[in-house]
């Protein structure tokens, strides 16, 4: 992977012992099903883009081993008693793990009037769901880092164990908003219950991280603010689950910030703007997870193939349904400029 930059220093990763699967079988099977579901959804979205059933694709194939456990560990609900997610546009796995159905993502891809996230206004992968504290995902990278401390502040005030989670990519941590997040989350006496996540795929569109940012580890930036930090192999589902579980537990109970950096792959490039073609040479987290599950006797090859076939069929049918749904009418541009009375 010389294209990543020859001398890219790798952070020391938290890695689960391959021999000891510390998660129970039921959870592993569930994680696998959701990871495959998320991948199949993303591949269908890419297909829709290539077939002309959408103008633009961006998403998170390659981040499932991390994004799925993240969703599974969140406390889902509305208001400060529950977890807030300020995500970025590679978050489909998290949404599916929370229980979201793929239909909405397909509708947003096709920009139909029925798109539940934006009514046909926004790009694919730009989820929002107030009922589950999912803050609107936006295209400007890293702005979420400067908004997230606000929900965490309300949660600190509220009490309880709800926390705020914010995720973004490595390239965007060059923006001042990432530094703002570190500052606002660690004001002395006002430390916030916030899990600050960076999914590090080593790219900013076409620019290698190793050519732009000096620190060996992005997570280390949290240390200067007295924060607990960790880096994890985000391509390893078990390690990711365990690292997230640890980070969630710390933030929930201590009500203090935590920086977690996850090293992930970017399997189809940045977006459709760079072709959305499979990138060889990157670790495929699903392939390696399946290898492990098979080796440990958790799932057979045939059973895993069945999972993929099932989602391929179901999501394919949903995509066909969406294809014929009406697009938003021109009069709808005036809707919801301001909050409308229910």
């Amino acid at each position, binding site marked *: 992977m010389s294209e990543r930059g020859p001398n890219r220093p790798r952070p020391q990763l938290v890695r689960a012992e391959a021999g000891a699967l510390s998660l129970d079988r039921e959870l592993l099977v569930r994680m696998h099903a959701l990871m495959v579901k998320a991948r199949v959804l993303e591949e269908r979205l890419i297909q829709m883009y290539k077939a002309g059933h959408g103008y633009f694709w961006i998403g998170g194939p390659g981040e499932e081993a991390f994004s799925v456990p993240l969703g599974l560990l969140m406390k889902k609900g509305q208001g400060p008693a529950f977890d807030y997610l300020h995500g970025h546009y590679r978050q489909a796995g998290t949404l599916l793990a929370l229980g979201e159905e793929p239909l909405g993502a397909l509708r947003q891809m096709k920009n139909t009037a029925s798109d539940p996230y934006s009514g046909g206004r926004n790009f694919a992968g730009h989820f929002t769901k107030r009922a589950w504290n999912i803050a609107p995902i936006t295209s400007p990278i890293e702005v979420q880092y400067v908004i997230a401390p606000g929900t965490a502040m309300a949660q600190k*005030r509220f009490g309880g164990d709800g926390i705020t989670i914010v995720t973004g990519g490595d390239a965007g941590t060059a923006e001042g908003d990432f530094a703002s997040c570190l500052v606002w989350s660690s004001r002395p006496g006002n430390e916030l219950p916030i899990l600050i996540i960076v999914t590090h795929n080593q790219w900013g569109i076409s620019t290698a991280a190793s050519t732009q940012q000096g620190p060996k580890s992005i997570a280390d930036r949290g240390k200067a603010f007295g924060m607990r930090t960790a880096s994890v192999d985000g391509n390893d589902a078990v390690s990711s689950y365990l690292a997230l579980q640890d980070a969630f537990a710390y933030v929930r109970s201590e009500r203090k910030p935590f920086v977690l950096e996850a090293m992930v792959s970017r399997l189809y490039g940045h977006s459709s703007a760079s072709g959305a073609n499979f990138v060889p040479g990157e670790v495929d987290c699903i392939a390696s997870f399946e290898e492990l599950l098979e080796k440990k006797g958790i799932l057979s090859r045939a059973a895993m193939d069945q999972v993929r076939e099932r989602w391929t069929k179901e999501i394919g049918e949903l995509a066909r349904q969406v294809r014929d749904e009406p697009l938003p009418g021109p009069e709808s541009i005036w809707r919801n400029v301001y909050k409308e009375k229910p």
Partner: protein
Amino acid sequence: MAQAIRMALHYAEEHLGVTDIFGEDVGPPLGGVFTVTQGLKTAWNSPLDERGIIGVAMGLAMAGQRPVAEIQFCDYIYNTIDLLKMAGNTCWTTDGDWNLPMVVKTPVGSGIRGSVYHSHSFDATATHIPGWKIVMPSTPLDAYGLMVSACQDENPVMFLEPKALLRVKGEEPIPGEPTDERTLSKMIDAPLGDRSKWKPEWPALQPYAVPIGKAKVVREGDALSVVSYGRTLPLCVRAAAELAEAGIHAEVIDLRSLWPYDWEAIRASVEKTGKVLFVNEDTEVTNFGEHLLRRTVEDLFYQLEAAPRLLAGKFIPGIGLADALELASVPQLGDITEAIRTLAAAQP
């Protein structure tokens, strides 16, 4: 006016659910560089980080809080522009899933010899950001009433404080304030020196709201209409009073809300007078007054008896410190008087 805004914020934290009044130097001991936030129980100091201030206000609003965030001078709000855009588009982009009840207040304009970074206006830029409501009072009572409305709104509201008027005493009292200004000052102005044990004694304030989107005819006349807001509004009133002695009777409208704005008030006045002058002090190119002027031409062309005019700030990179520089850069009383006189004399 500073006291009026402070009292409105007190009323809002007591009765309207305002949870956070924050920004640089907003909390104790200073209570704001213009003393606007002294003694408020929910006021707190933030890091010196405008993007953090706006972003955190958005996050607080998402989590059911009701924040009032301050940018110390509007000259420093520019690095938050994409966050302001986002706050304005969140309801629309999510097709109504989220709305952000938040207020951003910031002092604007010239008048204190603030030089390049403490004199700029923000109304032209603010009115380029859809999804916000934008208000700008010119009297203490309107400042009180508009802040109360802002703190009740379910959408982001930008409250522009004309800094030249923050020390102006109102002619109309705030409902509930003591009539004697020294009594009021003793009650709610923080003392000099050690303030650590000081607590304000708030008057029993009454609910009073100025609806967002409603202008006010502050002086009636039939020769021409003068539409303004903020610092230049009282200058327009003075100019009109002077010219009335010479037989020129200008009608003066205080717009008060820039978005949404009260077109019906402007229309009714222009249909009566046939002439209109828009006055503000932001730089004149792509100025908000240009929009009003365009709409006047499009909607009221056949009612006009003279070309509508805009008097605004010069399109230069800053407002210089020296007296002559500031006075030459933004409209002053003499400029307004002259503009009214000229327009009144124009013949079709």
